[in-house]
């Protein structure tokens, strides 16, 4: 590959894109005599403004890591199991492909669903459809779902976004719950940290809720420790205060920009006229009127009304009534934050929101609501995650801050921006599924993770641990025999590792595409080594909070070993199995070429990786901006305009009363009844969120006294970088990665000191590690840094300190949000000194 020619001769700095986490900040790499010497942030990229987080700064140590796999390998030891040496030997690509094609070909001819796939390379999201073309719907990993299982569907349902963030530039009062945004993780950390620091310097107040003294908590004006999975109670308490005590909320926003005034019947459905139009209460006429016929000023936001012998209430009123008993006192008992604090933060928040204020930006007037609540994994990756997410969004709606300056802003999945389509009743069409179309209901199900049973969900990979071991309970009428892993580590990321091992042991053949060996690849029969990000091509744009546009990843050096681009690998396998034409067709869909036929891939032709990205670039940016243009300029990233950022859906309303969720639940119930399946849980298909105990709370009553959580900070991604010596050398020095964190009060009660060996036992399993006593953790919580949770290829020090947290989690429906498939990421545990 003639890499050197891709940059101007006088320069040895090559623009590219970081691949150390999924987001992809702009970088430039200094190369001399074919050796990469330095990675810096690309100063011309407005996303990260020349800055890089520690992971981005450690990229060279991945490229040159001696534990990389540099040639295809096959195992020679037929015995598989934890700690059993596969006795790898290097083989040629041809032999490797031959074996893979033979084994995958056999299963495809028999029943393609018998292939289990675990794909985890987020940046190469365009390749995720490969298993579908093969004929397998299966998703054998909880990656993505672990963090965003309930988060993404709710963002998509509210405003067609994929993620969300508060307005760094204009927010004055920022509540942060269970998230590292701007401080240690999530969306494009390098640039976000700069934006957050600037906001704090101009006086923005930050209040952080977290069971642990996270960086966001350490830098906040106020840290409020909570119990895992109970943040929703805190926020429902604040909503009660706004609605019932202070009676301060943005009436105009709720009335004119949401469906909160739409009338709800006692059966939970909206009142509609003969033409199917949703009705509002017209206060002038003292009668219902179609939503688009009543003058806004006459529309009732609150109230219960009698009409034709029926009692109807506005959607807003239904929630207000539901929240009547969600008093700060009652919520305080759940989340352990005092009622006084719940009241005070609610008051500070609504005052800072400046309800009624406006601001002019580039000649246009917008509502100005400089107070917003931001949240991510810790606050909502729980068994009632749908309610968690709805609560946080609706609390923001109470002050009218959704997608307005200063407020809580949707972040699009990619360059396409928000998914904006008009839905029913003048409301934005909910887009809970953005990564693939919602699968139609099916019984028996096709997929082992039951995707056909989650019409608004993400892919609930954790359910594999139940469905594959007890298939008859779910009507699954086949049993997977072959596995393909592509940069995914199911043995680490799925809960209940013992069960995952059992499933892996049943596989007749496993192929892994990856950079390094992992817990999971040790079970592979053939290992196909991928390029690192510094050796490969990709046009990347993923969840950029402030900007939009693609950044090019390009090879900066010759591949270090005999590795290949994952696209080439998957294409070659498709070719050998005889479905390269269908693979091209699928790529045509996911790239958007189908809407732009000039760039359509010919099913009969094989395209190289450069050709693919060249077409993709030209299809988006025009024929003068193909791969060559990107090789030289690096990126086409620009700030999102105010029009793209603030209310990009114009006059369309957003949902406040989520009737469509209730409807989907009722439809699912009918479908399950028709097929005679009666016990499938559907209880979370609710139009509005409220407090309800989860299984985790019930476990507490059964003697599991403490909570266990896991967390990450800026030095590491959740699992991938933990094996990198440059990074682990630094994280090892910080006490928070020094062992299982425990509060001194609890430690004393249990007779534990820093260094004591302890065992945590949950209903699912137990882990052992070394205690680390710290002040910065809730007394009822034990914290396990992700930096000490890998059990393979880590050094002895890391092994001594911690253990594999995910063993404490449970994969079953009892620990899964029944509507979204979101996984419970905290556990109740008993703790003993050993």
């Amino acid at each position, binding site marked *: 590959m003639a890499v050197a020619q891709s940059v101007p001769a006088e320069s040895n700095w090559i623009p590219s894109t970081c691949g150390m986490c999924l987001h992809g900040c702009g970088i430039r790499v200094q190369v001399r005599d074919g050796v*990469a010497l330095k990675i810096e942030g690309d100063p011309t990229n407005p996303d990260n403004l020349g800055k890089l987080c520690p992971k981005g700064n*450690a990229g060279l*140590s991945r*490229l040159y890591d001696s534990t990389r796999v540099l040639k295809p390998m096959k195992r020679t030891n037929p015995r598989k199991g934890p700690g059993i040496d596969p006795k790898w030997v290097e083989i040629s690509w041809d032999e490797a492909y031959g074996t893979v094609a033979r084994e995958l070909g056999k299963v495809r001819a028999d029943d393609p669903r018998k292939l289990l796939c675990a794909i985890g390379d987020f940046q190469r999201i365009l390749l995720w459809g490969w298993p579908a073309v093969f004929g397998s719907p299966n998703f054998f990993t909880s990656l993505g779902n672990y963090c965003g299982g309930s988060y993404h569907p709710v963002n998509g349902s509210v405003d067609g976004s994929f993620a969300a963030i508060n307005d760094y530039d204009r927010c004055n009062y920022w509540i942060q719950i269970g998230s590292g945004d701007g401080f240690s993780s999530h969306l494009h950390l390098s640039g976000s940290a700069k934006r957050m620091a600037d906001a704090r310097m101009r006086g923005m107040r930050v209040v952080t809720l977290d069971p642990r003294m996270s*960086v966001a908590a350490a830098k906040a004006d106020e840290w409020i420790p909570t119990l895992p999975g109970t943040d929703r109670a805190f926020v429902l308490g604040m909503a009660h205060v706004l609605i019932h005590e202070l009676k301060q909320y943005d009436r105009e926003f709720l009335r004119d920009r949401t469906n909160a005034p739409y009338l709800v019947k006692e059966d939970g459905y909206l009142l509609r006229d003969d033409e199917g139009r949703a009705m509002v209460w017209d206060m002038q006429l003292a009668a219902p009127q179609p939503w688009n016929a009543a003058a806004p000023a006459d529309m009732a936001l609150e109230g219960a009304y009698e009409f034709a012998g029926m009692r109807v209430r506005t959607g807003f009123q239904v929630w207000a009534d539901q929240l009547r008993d969600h008093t700060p006192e009652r919520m305080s008992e759940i989340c352990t934050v005092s009622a006084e604090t719940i009241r005070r933060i609610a008051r500070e928040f609504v005052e800072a929101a400046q309800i009624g204020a406006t601001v002019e930006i580039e000649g246009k007037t917008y509502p100005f609501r400089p107070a917003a609540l931001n949240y991510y994994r810790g606050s909502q990756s729980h068994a009632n995650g749908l309610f968690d997410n709805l609560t946080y969004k609706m609390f923001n709606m109470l002050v009218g801050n959704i997608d307005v300056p200063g407020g809580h802003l949707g972040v699009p999945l990619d360059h396409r921006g928000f998914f904006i389509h008009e839905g029913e009743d003048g409301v934005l069409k909910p887009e809970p599924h953005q990564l693939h179309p919602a699968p139609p209901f099916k019984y028996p199900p096709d997929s082992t993770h039951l995707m056909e049973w989650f019409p608004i969900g993400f892919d609930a990979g954790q359910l594999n641990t139940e469905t594959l071991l007890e298939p008859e309970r779910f009507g699954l009428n086949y049993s997977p025999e072959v596995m393909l892993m592509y940069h995914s580590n199911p043995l680490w990321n799925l809960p209940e590792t013992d069960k995952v091992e059992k499933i892996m042991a049943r596989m007749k053949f496993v192929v892994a595409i990856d950079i390094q060996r992992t817990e999971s690849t040790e079970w592979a029969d053939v290992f196909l080594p991928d390029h690192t990000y510094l050796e490969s091509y990709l046009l990347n744009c993923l969840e950029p909070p402030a900007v939009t546009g693609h950044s090019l990843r390009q090879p900066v050096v010759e591949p270090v070993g005999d590795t290949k681009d994952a696209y080439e690998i998957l294409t070659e396998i498709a070719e050998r199995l005889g479905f390269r034409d269908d693979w091209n067709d699928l790529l045509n869909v996911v790239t958007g070429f189908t809407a732009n036929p000039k760039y359509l891939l010919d099913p009969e032709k094989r395209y190289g990786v450069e050709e693919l990205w060249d077409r993709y670039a030209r299809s988006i940016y025009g024929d003068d901006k193909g791969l060559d243009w990107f090789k030289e300029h690096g990126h086409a990233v620009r700030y999102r305009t105010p029009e793209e950022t603030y209310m990009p859906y114009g006059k369309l309303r957003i949902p406040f009363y989520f009737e469509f969720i209730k409807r989907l639940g009722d439809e699912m119930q009918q479908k399950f009844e028709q097929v005679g399946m009666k016990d499938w849980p559907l209880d979370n298909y609710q139009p509005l969120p409220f407090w309800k105990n989860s299984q985790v709370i019930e476990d507490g009553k059964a003697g599991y006294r403490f909570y266990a959580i896991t967390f990450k900070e800026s*030095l590491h991604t959740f699992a991938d970088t933990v094996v990198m010596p440059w990074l682990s050398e630094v994280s090892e020095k910080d006490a928070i990665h020094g062992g299982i964190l425990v509060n001194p009060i609890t430690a004393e009660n249990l007779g534990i000191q820093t260094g004591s060996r302890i065992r945590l036992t949950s209903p699912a399993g137990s882990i052992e590690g070394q205690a680390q006593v710290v002040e910065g953790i809730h007394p009822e919580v034990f914290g396990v840094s992700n930096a000490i949770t890998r059990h393979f290829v880590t050094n002895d020090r890391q092994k001594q300190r911690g253990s594999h947290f995910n063993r404490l989690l449970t994969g079953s429906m009892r620990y899964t949000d029944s509507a979204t498939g979101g996984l419970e990421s905290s556990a109740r545990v008993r703790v003993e000194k050993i």
Partner: protein
Amino acid sequence: MARLGMVIDLKRCIGCNACTLACKQENGTPEGVHYARVITREVGTYPKTRRTFLPVLCNHCDDAPCAQACPSGATWIRNDGLVMVEREKCIGCRACAVACPYMNRHFMEKGLLEHGYSTDGLSPYEAIKFAEFEEGTMTKCTLCGHRVDQGLEPACVITCPTDARIFGDLEPEDGKLQKLIRERKGWTLLPECNTKPSVFYLDD
């Protein structure tokens, strides 16, 4: 003449260690050697507790005890205030390391340059970077003198995601560094040692 230095704004700093890693890759230091580090501490008791982050590097002291302690003349001070070590002259006596109250001198132990971070041998990157070092001699942060000479800011400064590290000349009274130090009451580490550090801190 100039007196180059740095102001580190602890209100901005989030303890991310991007500086630690940027320094690592810029200078290619071997295992265990970090010119830039972040010292993390817990203060207070639950629930009134905090984690504090203190990024440290060589202070390029105006009255550098390391230079005074150095018997061979290997440690010298540039006109712009940068405290340097001349490898060829260093006799490895470690007097400077004892003298530096900040533990910012790093000794290249025997065998340290034989292996890189990886299990076997040196990577092509390490082979190039390690050629700059010599076992048995002292090494330290140079305030990225090699970058400064090209008109570039130190590696830790340009990468800092929060712009917490501000590099410049401490001499001009109306310069950005002195202004920040005045306005926010900048302070230095271990003032009682009278080393006159060129690295100042601004309170969180």
